């Protein structure tokens, strides 16, 4: 009997091994979680990165930061943690990877004595309540809000000089609350700070933002936006800061791990400004676009200024009627709105990179996109103008009704029935469009883009675009 059972086990050993393998894989996936969302991003294997978790809570809210840190350490590799001092339990020795923000919940002496691992030589009168830490390519500044509010200028001077010396790509300031002083923001600006975190909010310069979270709004400080997460949820939140090269992603999560919003910034512009150059984006990557399928019901005239055979270049501005979909006057209010990258794909990995999934419509190989934006600059002051376009398979871009760029399509006349040359998805290809600077106007401008597939049944289409400048 026993021998028969043993033989049967041997007979089915391959099946048992396969089942064990499947069970092991399922178990490891359940631990890690299957990725279900994403966005279009290319990673650089030689990139520098850091990650910080900053805990925030309304004044009357209690939260066990130590316990939360333990949970986060299990889930992800976070280099450093921070919060207002009052949120950190003092029932044990502090973690040396924890960086408190002085909030006057204890005196400066008591604070400095408990967090004895913090540097004390930044500004001697303030002991350890004011300090700075370097973390990969980030410099973190921990400020004393109480002293700032008193009008003491020493912290501001120290911030400016230290930030300049550090030369780090990301400069992040932590302060319990924002002092109501213009001088504070002047020092923040002069220090090239790209993020300010308080006990309730995150502040970022508008010019650096590439993705705005829900709840992000203009702050009383010109040029800076404010993201108040803790107040809207009235619950503790954690800001997870991930810096990779020039990009900084700030994700707010609640105590249950639910994502409340994500802010992304690119500090390239700020660091160029340090070198006397200014760069910015009139239309950011991942912006909102109006869109619809191309078809005979959308009017597209043939501009008299265009050689339809494409043999001669476009030398004059197009003069389009207001009901032409490329015209700045066109009424696109009935078109739906979606955030880039927009498109569709039969490949699940490519689909996860889309922010707006469109319907694959076999009736037309073309999608139309429109975006209106306002600029305050004089176009004549711009040194360079760039488009960065993600597309598959071909596109034509129009600025204020005149064609400025195309790829993957023959020159000359284009029609909603026109097919592009087959191509892989192109990710943010850069086009210098300096010849078209004079089309840009101070005030309201309109971009219109048509994206063509290479086959009426092609299963993939993608589009996103940014318009940036250097001056």
């Amino acid at each position, binding site marked *: 009997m026993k021998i028969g059972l043993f033989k049967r086990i041997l007979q089915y050993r391959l099946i048992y091994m396969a089942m064990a393998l499947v069970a092991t894989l399922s178990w490891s996936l359940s631990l890690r979680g299957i990725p279900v969302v994403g966005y279009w991003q290319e990673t650089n294997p030689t990139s520098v990165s850091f990650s910080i978790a900053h805990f925030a809570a309304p004044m009357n809210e209690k939260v066990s930061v130590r316990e939360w840190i333990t949970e986060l350490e299990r889930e992800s590799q976070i280099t450093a943690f921070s919060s207002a001092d009052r949120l950190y339990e003092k029932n044990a020795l502090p973690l040396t990877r924890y960086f408190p923000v002085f909030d006057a919940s204890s005196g400066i002496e008591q604070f400095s004595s408990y967090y004895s691992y913090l540097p004390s030589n930044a500004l001697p009168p303030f002991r350890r309540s004011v300090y700075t830490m370097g973390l990969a390519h980030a410099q973190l500044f921990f400020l004393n809000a109480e002293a700032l509010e008193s009008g003491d200028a020493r912290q501001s001077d120290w911030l400016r000089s230290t930030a300049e010396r550090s030369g780090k790509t990301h400069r992040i300031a932590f302060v319990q609350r924002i002092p109501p002083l213009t001088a504070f923001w002047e020092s923040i600006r002069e220090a090239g700070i790209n993020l300010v975190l308080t006990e309730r909010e995150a502040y970022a310069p508008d010019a650096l933002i590439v993705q705005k979270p829900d709840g992000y709004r203009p702050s009383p400080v010109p040029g800076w936006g404010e993201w108040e997460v803790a107040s809207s949820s009235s619950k503790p939140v954690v800001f997870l800061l991930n810096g990779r090269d020039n990009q900084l992603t700030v994700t707010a999560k609640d105590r249950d791990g639910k994502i409340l919003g994500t802010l992304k910034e690119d500090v390239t512009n700020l660091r160029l400004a340090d070198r006397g150059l200014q760069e910015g984006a009139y239309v950011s990557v991942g912006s909102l676009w109006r869109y619809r399928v191309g078809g005979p019901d959308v009017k597209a005239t043939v501009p008299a200024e265009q050689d*339809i055979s494409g043999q001669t270049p476009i030398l004059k501005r197009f003069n389009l009627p207001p009901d032409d979909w490329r015209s700045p006057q066109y009424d696109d209010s009935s078109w739906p709105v979606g955030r880039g990258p927009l498109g569709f794909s039969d490949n699940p990995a490519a689909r996860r990179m889309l922010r707006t999934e469109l319907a694959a419509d076999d*009736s037309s*190989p073309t999608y139309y996109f429109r975006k209106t934006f306002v600029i305050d600059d004089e176009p004549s002051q711009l040194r360079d103008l760039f488009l960065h376009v993600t597309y598959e398979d071909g596109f034509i871009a129009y600025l204020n009704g005149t064609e400025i760029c195309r790829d993957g399509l023959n020159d*000359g006349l284009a*029609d909603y029935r*026109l*097919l592009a040359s087959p191509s892989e998805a192109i990710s943010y290809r850069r086009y210098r469009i300096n010849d078209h600077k004079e089309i840009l106007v101070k005030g309201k401008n309109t971009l219109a883009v048509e994206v063509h597939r290479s086959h009426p049944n092609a299963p993939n289409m993608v589009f996103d675009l940014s318009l940036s400048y250097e001056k």
Partner: protein
Amino acid sequence: MTMIRRIYLLVLISMTVLGACGHEGQPGSAESTAGPIELTASLSATKQHVIIRNGDIFVWKDATFILNGNYEYKMSLVPRGSVSLNLADFRREDGTAFRPGKDWMRSLRIIVPDAVDGHAGYYEW
């Protein structure tokens, strides 16, 4: 007339007739300058579409596409490159639409009244 002479006469008549036919409209001849030119086109199809490639260096103006001899589709301008036309948009004179999946594509003719310098252009598959 012997059998050999009859065959000889028949061959002669046939050569004359065929020769005359071949001469009419042949490209490069004096008469061909007044006749239509052949469009540089190619086509492929899916169940729902016909994909037509305009391989000429010029845009076809007022083109008519005739499917199976009686389903028509008109385009005022056909850009260079390939266009995708929905087969269901081809219609007979009485308005009946082509039914992709039920009707089969057997022939396609492209007519451009004024392709180059007043010469009509045509393509036939």
